[in-house]
């Protein structure tokens, strides 16, 4: 199998990874991608000493379209073990990416929805290109799903349970790049592909050893958890609100 993630050794030891599914017009979380990501992460780890940072981007009009809906639609109870295994593998690969020890930047050249945003959130920094059609978000709920590839865990740790649920997870909001920067889903917005790559390289140069906030000792989920009585008092309202305002 050809790896669908292109590997280009750029200047100063920065590797540019370009996702480009040969069989589809958009990148999705299919078997080709999972196998490719596994090989790429393994190669990154093997060549760690020669690498100063990683830029992850896409050759498609969109960054990444998320789960392969044809696959998800056909999943039955008999497939639960296989599906769980695939998701676990994806989560483990993105986890290895974010604990790589070298800066990993998502150069979001177009829409990053669902699984695409989950990949971007596993990167240390997100630069979004503002072009027609670019938007980020978790539309899973509109299909009767929830993000299963780390999107819940990471948004909750970035923004707290309440903001993650109400602004990202439970209503399937899609954000234009500037809005996404305002609420914190992306860090920078640029207007040309060149500016996007420049911003990624500059950030890598300035942040040689980034650590995700939740990997810093003492990190707490903003706004508290169900173990905190003041937050716990609000918990019953989340499901109630979902019935009141479906």
């Amino acid at each position, binding site marked *: 199998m050809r790896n669908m993630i292109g590997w280009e050794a750029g200047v100063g030891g920065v590797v540019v990874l370009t996702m480009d599914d040969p069989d589809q017009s958009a990148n999705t979380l299919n078997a080709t991608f999972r196998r490719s990501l596994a090989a790429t992460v393994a190669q990154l780890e093997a060549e760690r000493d020669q690498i100063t940072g990683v830029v992850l981007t896409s050759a498609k009009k969109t960054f990444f379209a998320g789960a392969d809906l044809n696959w998800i639609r056909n999943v039955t*109870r008999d497939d*639960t*073990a296989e599906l*769980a295994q695939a998701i676990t593998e994806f989560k483990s690969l993105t986890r290895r990416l974010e604990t790589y020890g070298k800066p990993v930047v998502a150069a979001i050249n177009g829409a990053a929805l669902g699984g695409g945003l989950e990949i971007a959130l596993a990167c240390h920094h997100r630069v979004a290109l503002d072009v027609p059609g670019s938007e980020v978000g978790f539309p899973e709920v509109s299909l009767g799903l929830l993000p299963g590839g780390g999107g819940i865990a990471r948004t909750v740790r970035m923004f707290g349970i309440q903001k993650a649920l109400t602004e990202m997870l439970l209503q399937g909001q899609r954000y234009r790049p500037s809005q996404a920067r305002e609420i914190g889903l992306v860090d920078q917005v640029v207007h040309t592909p060149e500016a996007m790559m420049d911003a990624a390289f500059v950030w890598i140069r300035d942040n040689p050893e980034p650590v995700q906030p939740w990997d810093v000792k003492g990190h707490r989920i903003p706004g508290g958890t169900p*173990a905190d009585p003041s937050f716990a008092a609000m918990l019953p309202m989340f499901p109630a609100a979902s019935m009141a305002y479906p």
Partner: protein
Amino acid sequence: MNGEAYIYEAIRTPRGKGKANGSLHRVKPVSLVVGLLHELAARHPGLDFDRVDDLVLGCVSPVGDQGADIARTAAVAAGLPLTVAGVQVNRFCASALEAINLAAAKVVSGWDEMVVAGGVESMSRVPMGSDGGAWGMDPETNYTTYFVPQGISADLIATLEGFTREDVDAYAVRSQHLAAAAWSGGHFAKSVVPVLDRNGLPVLDHDEHMRPGTTMQTLASLPPSFAGIGDMGGFDAVALQKYHWVERISHVHTAGNSSGIVDGAAVVLLGTEQAGRDMGLTPRGRIVSTAVTGSDPTIMLTGPTPATLKALATAGLSKDDIDLWELNEAFAAVVLKWIRDLDLPMEKVNVNGGAIAMGHPLGATGAMILGTVLDELERIGGRYGLVTLCIGGGMGVATIIERV
């Protein structure tokens, strides 16, 4: 007395390590109970829950995830008929046996005809002591009642009885080896119900606290668990005020010869003979007698002996009638003292290991070990078994069952 309380089923979850990395940490305690209730229904298609009056569950730290009457919560969450009520009881470490005894009393009296009893404790999610309480936390109360933590009490028992570190460690090795043999021999196959996640994928199917390779050497390297709170914390002095003839407390208990902190749940189905017959259920045993008693709260863990004697007297049985003796292994010295007090035959005591190897999910243990004894009576063709636990605050609960 109107009738008999028959035991129709006794099942439990496996015990997960009571830590954030334990397999059952991600499973809510209510889900542990719901899984067992669904298993009861699946195993016994004839079981008519419309005739189950109550769900009585032990839970020792009934706050947070397991607060607010988890028994009623679980009954509703499991989708049982709304007439199946639900009450949570707390007799500390004997809560689940207390739940069974209460349920038996309801059935024997004739006022209820079928009751599910047991307990649940997710110690990884709701740590011991989460519910506070005047006994330990209120300085005035704990001062005037000579409160000490249980580990000090266990060490005081060892000191008074002259049990050495080697004695208690040897008992712990025995527990580990018997538990490993019981698992490999399939002795728990009938009662352990694997915990599945919402997709039906396995979460845990065995007791994961066990360390089958335990030896006297590995145990000898463990530091005493309670020397610090005894010395720096002042609790040795409290115990010695009351037990003033003791020179000093010998801290022999460690993490290796005390019960393990684990998560788990267990339920037992009790009912009248008539109800069982109507539903086509086969009784496996019956409750012969129950007993509860209090003892000195400072040494705290000596209640099993008087509770045992009381249960035997109520049943009109003698020691020699009992085929299996089961005392929860809260601490090794507690079991050794009970054996010495009653001069019990070691080969009939805790024959499948206990909480030192497999863990002690506080509010669930009583039901787990009652099920273990019932399974073993069936396996060996025995008749009577006695189950008892030592209890915080200085109490003892005991139950005698008969295989039928």
